[in-house]
């Protein structure tokens, strides 16, 4: 159900799957590969990011666009309410903020839609212009929020580069560049990340990642019988020393033990 919701809503929703029976990481990975669960936009963890008060499994907690819990319960019994609540949150983004002060509405709408640069710039203009202390405080809070979210996005891209997920980092950086457009301060976050991604020293790493991506896409789409462990071992040998090689060896081990 949640995998279908992630596909249906795409980037407008983030699904996090939390394994809740204490199985080891490799066991969970093997189980997920067998069922072709991986390769989508959903995140997977065995850490519980929020308290879950429901007793059975599967169960869920839904957070609104600001990260506040708004609905929880059985994923089976509450399936339709869950979907309706998600759709309402997505609509909220499209409609724009309803409670923002009139002069701050455009900036708040931009922020809600992920336009960090224009939101920050609009808010900063208002801070300079207004004599209303309350409005200025709201504008400062919004500018700080836009800046904080942009920094968090930049840090995420940095972590993806550290992990060797260059293709994903590149996609997110292209989106990020558009998101910070309009604010010199936030646009400055782009170049260091672009420099890191375009570093010649990563050439071998990137070749290895592309080769692994091809095998992973078959594995995720067709299941664990579709890629022989030997193909992954060969990739690991060919690109020895790269992060992709380490990942390929790990996957080969999972498939061989499966």
């Amino acid at each position, binding site marked *: 159900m949640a995998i279908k919701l992630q596909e249906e809503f795409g980037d*407008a929703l983030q699904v996090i799957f939390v394994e809740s029976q204490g199985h080891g990481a490799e066991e969970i990975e093997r189980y997920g590969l067998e069922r072709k669960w991986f390769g989508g936009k959903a*995140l997977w963890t*065995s*850490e519980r*990011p929020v308290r879950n008060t429901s007793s059975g499994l599967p169960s869920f*907690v839904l957070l609104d666009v*600001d*990260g506040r819990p708004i609905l929880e319960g059985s994923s089976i019994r509450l399936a339709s309410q869950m979907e309706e609540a998600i759709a309402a949150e997505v609509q909220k983004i499209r409609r724009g903020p309803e409670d923002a002060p009139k002069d701050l509405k455009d900036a708040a709408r931009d922020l809600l839609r992920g336009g960090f640069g224009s939101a920050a710039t609009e808010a900063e203009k208002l801070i300079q212009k207004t004599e209303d202390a309350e409005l200025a405080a709201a504008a400062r809070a919004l500018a700080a929020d836009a800046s904080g*979210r942009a920094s968090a996005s930049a840090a995420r891209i940095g972590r993806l580069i550290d992990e060797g997920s260059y293709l994903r980092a590149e996609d997110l950086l292209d989106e990020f560049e558009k998101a910070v457009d309009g604010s010199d301060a936030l646009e400055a976050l782009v170049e260091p990340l672009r420099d890191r991604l375009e570093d010649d020293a990563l050439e071998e790493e990137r070749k290895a990642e592309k080769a692994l991506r091809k095998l992973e896409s078959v594995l995720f789409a067709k299941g664990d019988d579709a890629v022989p462990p030997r193909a992954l071992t060969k990739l690991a040998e060919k690109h020895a020393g790269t992060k992709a090689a380490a990942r390929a060896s790990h996957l080969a081990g999972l498939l061989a033990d499966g």
Partner: protein
Amino acid sequence: MRIHLTSAIGLLASVVAPCQDGAAAKPAEFQFQSRSLHLDGVSRLSDLRGRPVLIEFWGRR
């Protein structure tokens, strides 16, 4: 009858649990550790602000 009604309400409460009023509830905060399986560069739950987040707790049947 009263007992049955109480049980039914109790069961319903365990199935349907709208959280606190959205305006009053605090944003959830959590820092993931490196042992997580696949987090796509996400380090904290707050990194995902700006879109709804569905946290699905699952187990093997």
